[in-house]
């Protein structure tokens, strides 16, 4: 189901600079992801995944995130969110190459960043396992009486996990400052939404838990910004949790290991490409006089230059050493037989 | 929350009986009386030091008697939880079988392996379950899938849980799957407002479990679980829908847990006597007795005779079960796998 195209431009409280920043995040997201796929095809890295189609929701949500205040507990498809809250192109390339200087020192899969400084939590690849962590972090904030909130995200498929349910319920009982942003791209690898749940609107589950549920067009970055901002503002000021569902689409295969032609038609994907959020938002900004076409081109060039430079720098960095396998298992050196 | 017998209110002057004959109404009452008697017996035996553990379902009698009457013996499957003594009685277990389980005798269905109230009987369509909350709900879904897959008409699975159990991940995963595949299953939630010492408002932010149904894309409904007739009507409607291809639903019966969670619990550490006494005013057992007398289904003497008969049956069953032998020590080793077994071969 295709959300309706909204032709009226509603910028909410965003300045021109912020609108340009939104586009920059979206373009950087797309460029860095293409880079991952290129490097994989060149045989330089074993794996990459992509969020094409998620650029708008992630850029918008990242802009609603308060750096230095909020906490982000993302999932593996959140490259754009990570960029939007401050992860650099170089850090992303370090992770893709699995280099020692990477945040996890080359331990984690690509796109599993973590940074205490940015308020970005460490996640595994295990679906929905991050949601209880987000709820626990929000509990800590509430207990200490802080005006902060947790933004956590998940895919549509993740809502089927028991941990998703348990997290939603607990967040609602304790009115915790947490916003669950579900990026509904209608697919979970090869499983379509209709096999994931019997009714297609995830936000409708919120009522059953006793929290607000919000639906937003995930192809519209400004709308996503506004929806997530409202929810985060409410959460920070004691209004409790919310579930925000952004309807978007996954344009590419699940990862470099997947071939989506086995389970969905090219026509479907082509049809959904018509609402590709990146060119759509470029056009919106140009038509509304926020940027010129030349500005957009310049922005893209600058992102590409940055990506190229980051690729070269990261590739030149060393791998972790074999002995790095043994550190940080426990707080100190450890032997199971003592 | 008010807990009146709404549909059977004497003031309306008419008894909504969902087609239940006088015989069926009396059977409902007998089940309720038997539940209470057997529950008491478990607690008595525990105080006498004869059994280590008992679990009561006082307050659930109407709900369980009504739901059991909507179960079609020989066709449907019941996947109950540990507080479902009355449901299991209602689908055909005898007081003797209940007491075998309480005494953990060899002749018990489980050979004395399980806790009391964890019955199973393939013949009765009663699935084996553990004490692990919500673990049985996916099993019910699997059984419903099998029924649908084989194209068996007119069968459905009735699965039950407490209010607290709805917080488990497996509860959620099960509801979602049942809805996707439109399975012949009814999720009956016995909302007694407590999960051991945890009140409903610490279990969920909004107290109406049936409202979760919409989020899964299935019908949900709430009914007064203190009213056995209304319960029967609600559960029957849901089971009929499930049996005829209409898919699953969540039905929530409101009731109350009058006793402590089990013989190992002291509920006065977390709730007051006054609160419980207040709720006792709506005790479904005397109210249903009064209702049947009021409507001329039974006389007071009939009721009295039924109570005596229930007590006699319970006493007989107690004596017979107690006289039965325990399992042998060697019974510990059987049924780990099919056949004899050694991990080192």
């Amino acid at each position, binding site marked *: 189901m295709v959300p309706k195209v909204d032709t009226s431009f509603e910028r909410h409280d965003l300045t021109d600079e912020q609108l340009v920043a939104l586009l920059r995040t979206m373009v950087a997201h797309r460029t860095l992801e293409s880079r991952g796929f290129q490097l994989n095809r060149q045989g330089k890295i074993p*794996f990459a995944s992509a969020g094409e189609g998620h650029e708008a929701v992630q850029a918008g949500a990242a802009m609603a995130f308060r750096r230095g205040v909020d906490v982000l507990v993302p999932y593996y498809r959140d490259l754009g969110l990570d960029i939007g809250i401050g992860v650099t192109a170089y850090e992303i390339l370090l992770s893709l190459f*699995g*280099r020692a200087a990477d945040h996890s020192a*080359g*331990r*984690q*899969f*690509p796109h599993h960043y973590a940074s205490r400084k940015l308020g970005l939590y460490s996640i595994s*690849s*295990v679906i929905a396992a991050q949601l209880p962590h987000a709820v626990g972090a929000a509990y800590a904030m509430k207990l200490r009486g802080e005006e902060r909130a947790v933004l956590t995200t998940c895919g549509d498929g993740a809502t*089927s*996990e*028991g941990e998703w349910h348990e997290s939603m319920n607990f967040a609602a009982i304790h009115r915790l400052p947490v916003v669950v942003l579900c990026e509904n791209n209608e697919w979970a690898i*090869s*499983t379509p939404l209709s096999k994931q*749940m019997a009714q297609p609107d995830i936000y409708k589950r919120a009522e059953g838990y006793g929290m607000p549920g919000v639906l937003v067009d995930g192809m519209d970055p400004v709308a996503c910004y506004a929806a997530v901002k409202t929810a985060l503002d409410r959460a920070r000021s004691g209004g409790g949790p919310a579930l925000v569902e952004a309807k978007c689409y996954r344009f590419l295969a699940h990862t470099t290991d997947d071939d989506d032609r086995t*389970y969905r038609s090219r026509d479907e994907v082509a049809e959904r490409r018509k609402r590709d959020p990146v060119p759509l938002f470029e056009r919106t900004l140009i038509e509304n006089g926020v940027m010129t076409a030349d500005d957009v081109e310049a922005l893209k060039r600058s992102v590409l230059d940055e990506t190229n430079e980051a690729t070269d720098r990261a590739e030149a960095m060393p*791998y*972790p050493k*074999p*002995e790095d*396998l*043994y550190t940080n*298992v426990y707080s100190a050196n*450890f*032997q*199971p037989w003592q | 929350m008010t807990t009146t017998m709404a549909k059977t209110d004497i003031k309306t002057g008419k008894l909504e009986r969902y087609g239940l004959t006088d015989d069926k109404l009396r059977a409902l009452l007998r089940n309720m009386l038997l539940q209470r008697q057997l529950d008491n017996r478990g607690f008595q035996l525990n105080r006498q030091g004869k059994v280590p553990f008992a679990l009561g379902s006082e307050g659930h009698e109407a709900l369980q008697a009504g739901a059991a009457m909507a179960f079609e013996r020989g066709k449907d499957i019941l*996947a109950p939880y540990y507080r479902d003594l009355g449901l299991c009685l209602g689908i055909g277990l005898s007081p003797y079988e209940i007491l075998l389980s309480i005494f953990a005798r060899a002749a018990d*269905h*489980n*050979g004395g*392996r399980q806790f009391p109230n*964890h019955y*199973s009987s393939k013949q009765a369509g009663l*699935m*084996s379950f*553990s004490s*692990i909350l919500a*673990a049985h709900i*996916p*099993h019910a*879904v*699997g*059984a419903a*899938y*099998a029924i649908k*897959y084989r194209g068996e008409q007119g069968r459905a699975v009735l699965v039950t849980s407490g209010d607290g159990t709805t917080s488990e*991940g*497996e509860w959620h*995963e*099960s509801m979602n*799957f049942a809805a*996707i595949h439109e399975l012949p299953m009814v999720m009956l939630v016995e909302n007694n407002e407590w999960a051991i010492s945890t009140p409903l408002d610490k279990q969920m932010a909004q107290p109406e479990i049936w409202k979760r149904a919409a989020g899964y894309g299935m019908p949900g409904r709430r009914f007064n679980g203190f009213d056995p007739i209304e319960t029967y009507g609600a559960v029957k409607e849901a089971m009929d829908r499930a049996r005829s291809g209409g898919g699953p639903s969540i039905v929530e019966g409101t009731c109350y847990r009058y006793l402590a969670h089990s013989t190992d619990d002291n509920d006065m550490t977390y709730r007051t006597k006054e609160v419980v006494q207040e709720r006792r005013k709506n005790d479904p057992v005397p109210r249903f007795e009064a209702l049947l007398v009021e409507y001329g289904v039974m006389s007071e003497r009939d009721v009295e005779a039924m109570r005596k008969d229930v007590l006699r049956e319970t006493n007989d069953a107690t004596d017979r079960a107690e006289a039965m032998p325990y399992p042998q020590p060697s019974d510990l080793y059987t*049924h*780990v*796998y*099919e056949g004899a*077994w050694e991990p*080192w*071969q």
Partner: protein
Amino acid sequence: MAVSSSATSTVMNNVEAVRATLYEALKSDDRTVILGEDVGARGNVFLITKDFINEFGPQRIIDTPIAEASIVGIAVGMAMEGLRPIAEIQFADFIYPSFNQIVGEAAKTRYRSNGEYTCPLVIRTPYGGGVRGALSHSVSIEALFYHVPGLKIVAPAFPADVKGLLNAAIDDPDPVLFLEHKKTYRLIKGEVPDGHYTIPLGKANLLKEGTQLTVVSYGLYVHWALEAAQKLQEEGLSVEVIDLRSIRPMDKGTILRSVEKTRKLLIVHEDNKFGGIGAEISAMVAEEALFHLDAPIRRLCAPDVPAMGYALPLEEEYMSSPGEMAEAMRELVRF
């Protein structure tokens, strides 16, 4: 042990062997259903069930929501109600949410109902590393489950064993955890007898005879241990290699007979050492054959860290190579 109904055979890799066996199971028994994530149109992430959905329909090839506890739990209910479900956990790393249903429910159903309800169920899952799977696509899980009475565990290494053991698992009246090493999926090819046959659970396979040392392993490392043993053969050292194939039950006779002959034992596995399968084998041999031993039992296993990392050096450091295995064998032979 393979009881083949036909003298002909076909060369397959392990993916093809799993696929062919599942296909036959679906063909021959309509109580068989497969449920798991992406087993339908996608045909499983390794293409094991590719096109099954077209032939057997979505009622039998069930694309589940992402909910592992219920994948196993629903399979338990299906089994209790007379179907023969084969549940798939997409990667062994994602089996943890279903721990309760495997350990607390499936393994106890027969016991708790005193035999009235049973749980004939197969849970298949790809495990193991060497594929750059990082922390969440590379783990070994067997040690977490082999402690559990009521459960059986199989971990074959060769295509012919995959077929015979998977058939046995499907026929088995009890729950079986069937572990497929994902690195062997396409790497390992071999002759697979045509027609239906089973290999009994709990029977190890003596792959290579030798006189100076017994090496016991399972899964991917069987192949590497064999490679190492062959290298040692060229050096004039004689090593016997046993492929366990089944982890629970485990074959005592084959191990003891071999150890009594070679008088030395090396256990090699990819899972970490502490509390691993090797610990149980060591204890059994110590209890039953201590005075036959001429050297301490040795175990070559993964280090005590949670998992292998993504970067290549971290993965290589975690895993044992055929070279390291050869070195451990030499040391023990010379002891």
